[in-house]
């Protein structure tokens, strides 16, 4: 499977995700933000980081970069797109995903391992996970507090577009297990065609037992499936 990782000047998880993709046997290419063409790819990843310093609003400036037009075109023609952390923020700024990511409720940057529950386990991105499986996964962000209007929220629910929700170790989804104030504990969502996934947690950080655990592996192997 061919993948492309978009690199903005302030991306800082680009190497991490590229390593993960290669380890999982993707044929990966890095694509600089000033490019105007995308290599042929089955998967486009927008990595975490601070794209353009995250001034103004996180992801806002990246949403206007040259390469983003190509990403939008590819996404609209069905290419798989994965936005992680800052990548999720950028996807909402481009309109490929609805809603937005506000500042964390405690107004602080949060880095820690949290638990998320796989809500939709039947997609291209998640078919290797079990229904309601609880994953332990790292988050690292200042703006991960997902917000959207009530119309879109019911669409998310009705069409099974919520992919992950924050929960506790036992899988309980409540305020206590919500690290950043995210609406309905949402940690990751699809667009309506389910070819675009935006998520705040970092699966690329969870593929190696020495560093953490392997709870992120199945996201990549689902894609290869």
């Amino acid at each position, binding site marked *: 499977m061919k993948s492309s990782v978009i690199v903005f*000047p*302030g*991306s*800082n*998880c680009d*190497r*991490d995700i590229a*390593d*993960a993709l290669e380890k999982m046997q993707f044929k990966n290419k890095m694509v600089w933000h*000033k490019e105007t063409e995308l290599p042929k790819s089955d998967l486009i990843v927008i990595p*975490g*980081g*601070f794209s*353009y*310093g*995250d*001034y103004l609003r996180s992801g806002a400036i990246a949403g206007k970069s040259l390469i983003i037009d190509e990403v939008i075109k590819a996404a609209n023609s069905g290419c798989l797109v994965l936005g992680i952390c800052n990548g999720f923020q950028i996807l909402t700024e481009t309109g490929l995903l609805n809603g937005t990511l506000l500042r964390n409720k405690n107004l*602080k*940057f*949060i*880095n*820690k391992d949290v638990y998320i529950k796989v809500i939709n386990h039947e997609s291209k991105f998640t078919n290797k996970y079990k229904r309601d499986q609880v994953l332990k996964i*790292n988050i*690292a962000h*200042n703006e991960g507090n997902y917000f959207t209007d009530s119309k879109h929220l019911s669409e998310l629910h009705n069409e099974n577009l919520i992919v992950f929700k924050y929960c506790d170790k036992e899988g309980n989804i409540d305020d206590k297990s919500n690290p950043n104030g995210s609406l309905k504990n949402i940690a990751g969502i699809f667009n309506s065609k389910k070819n675009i996934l935006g998520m705040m947690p*970092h699966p*690329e*950080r969870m593929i*190696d037992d*020495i*560093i*953490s655990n392997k709870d992120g592996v199945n996201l990549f192997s689902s894609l290869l499936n």
Partner: protein
Amino acid sequence: MKLTKDIIKKHGLEPEEFKNIKKLLKREPNLLELGIFSAMWNEHCSYKSSKIHLKKLPTTGKQVIQGPGENAGVIDIGDNDAIVFKIESHNHPSYIEPYQGAATGVGGILRDVFTMGARPIALLNSIHFGSPNHSKTKSLLNGVVSGIGGYGNCIGIPTVGGETKFDETYNENILVNAMAVGHVKKNKIFYSKAKGLNKSVVYVGSKTGRDGIHGASMASAEFDENSEDKKPTVQVGDPFTEKLLMEACLELMKDNSIISIQDMGAAGLTSSSVEMASKGELGIELELDKVPCREENMSPYEMMLSESQERMLIILEEGKELHAKKIFDKWDLDFVIIGKTTNTNNLTLKFNNKIEGEIPIEALATKAPLYDRAWVKKKPVKSKINLKDLKKIKIEDALFKILSSPNHSNKSWVTNQYDQSVMCDTVQKSGSDAAVIRIHNKDKAIAVSVDSSANYCKSHPNSGGKQIVCENWRNLITVGAKPLAITNCLNFGNPENKEIMGEFAECLDGIKEACEFLNYPVVSGNVSFYNGTNKKNIFPTPVIGGVGLIKNLTKPLNHNFKKDKSKLLLIGKTFGHLGQSCFLKENYSLKVGVPPEINLLNEKNNGESLLELIDNNLVLSSHDVSSGGLITAISEMAMSSSFGAKIYKPKKLTNLYEYFFGEDQARYIIEIEAINLPKVEKILKDRDIFFENIGFTQKEYFEIEGELKISTKELYEINNKWYNNY
């Protein structure tokens, strides 16, 4: 313009020093030249009060590739891999504007590391605040922590360790020390020494603004009521630009375009150009009208003294200009040839084709003043503390007091604000004795830790100096790393005060002795004097940052209990030393007595023996015993795991308080499988190590026979509430 006494004084120069300047120049300097002298001759850049003492430190060893004198130190970790690291203070700016002060501190130390060709792989920090009850402490803590995080998180380097302490001695003068660690191939290290005539001197990075003018002199002056006025000199950091600068420099470093490279830190363009020229024994000529400026009408004086962040000076090989410019264009950074190297041995400053200043390089560098300041030895303090004279307290209550104190509380409120995992090589995050970072794509790792103990150093500077080196050494050993070398940040008060200078000299003697004995050389560092206000100086606070090597990274070792029913051994002798202990401080508000003595022989032997046990895979978890003594150390091992422990009462008749809270040095607690006990005992006996079998792990409860029983969950809660309620 006539240079009045007042102007000279405002530049922080003594009348004697000004005379000297005139002698070196053989004339009066003009204002621009005076500014340059003031920047180069102040304490921060010239090390005039500390140099003769720093010379004593051991700086060499088989593992050392580059000792002090470059932007950062470099050590060899085998297989053509080298580690570049340094620590630096940003105390005064952080007190004035905590967010920006701390952020630019991180930015500055990162530049020191990537200037040498290394990709930064870890950040650490040592931060000291005043009493939690002091009106400024809370906002300073908030600002500093978010500033450190703001910069490191954005640029994408994990912040993996540090220390956060509170003491009223820092009420008016906090400490913010930042350490950066980078990885480089041994044959791709870059240095600042200029070479060759007529080579292009290139300015890259951000534009120059009026920020931080006289920042270096500020860092060398005491605070007083008017320090608020010094505010305009505070710099604002831009981590995004730093990220661009880092990537662009590392990209240019892939081939051999660079002759020499130097970041613009304190005293900006002045110190970077002078340092490069001085090391290369060359002259340098700058055309200041070419300097990229952010503001209109900036004068040569302002350009030379500006401390705008995220800038570098590079001397390029001939013909590489276009190639280099392309790279900086790609990263949207300024790239301007602003001068060239010359054979005049002068710093020559031109503006609109007119020479505005000309100073012999050596007058600024090697001829800068050097002082052997007067100092006095610390008077020995009475050391006997009689527990009988103190109010009786239950062991349990004393322990809770310690675990819930600001200095011993769990630091996740701090560390959760730092991205510790980015780059995917963080094997051990904050929360253990040392952080462990894997070398990318390899099966080896480095361990890093920063430590200080100001109370020890205050009461007995020599033992204190030794003690921190040893504690730092131990912290690396407990995660299974062989300690290789250190960097140090020496935070002291006013060196013109004899007692303070004495603290400095004696601390340094202690550090030297320990480093020599442990073959633990100093490869880089920083001195920060004048930490104090109105003659009230901070406690001497040398901070040690150590780096060790884990050759075969199999599974990470930390201090969390791993299993039920493992044996617990205490390595090292317990005498029950309570002087300057955390027990007395937290329970009785007493800072009395002398710190525990250091026996370097035991220190080395115990540490190396533990490493042997670890290398033989005999250790499940290990922890050094430091502040708070044995009982605190065991609690820490329990709280971070899901197991507790049952500890026997000491066999010999000893005072329980001394036994459990004493801070005797060179001690470790290890957890081992019961079946391995004979093997472990044999190794320890063969090496003549004193050890005790102190108990075993068990489910759920931390227990001392007949004295105390508490669930580890409850301990955890006690340990975790302070920050959240502050």
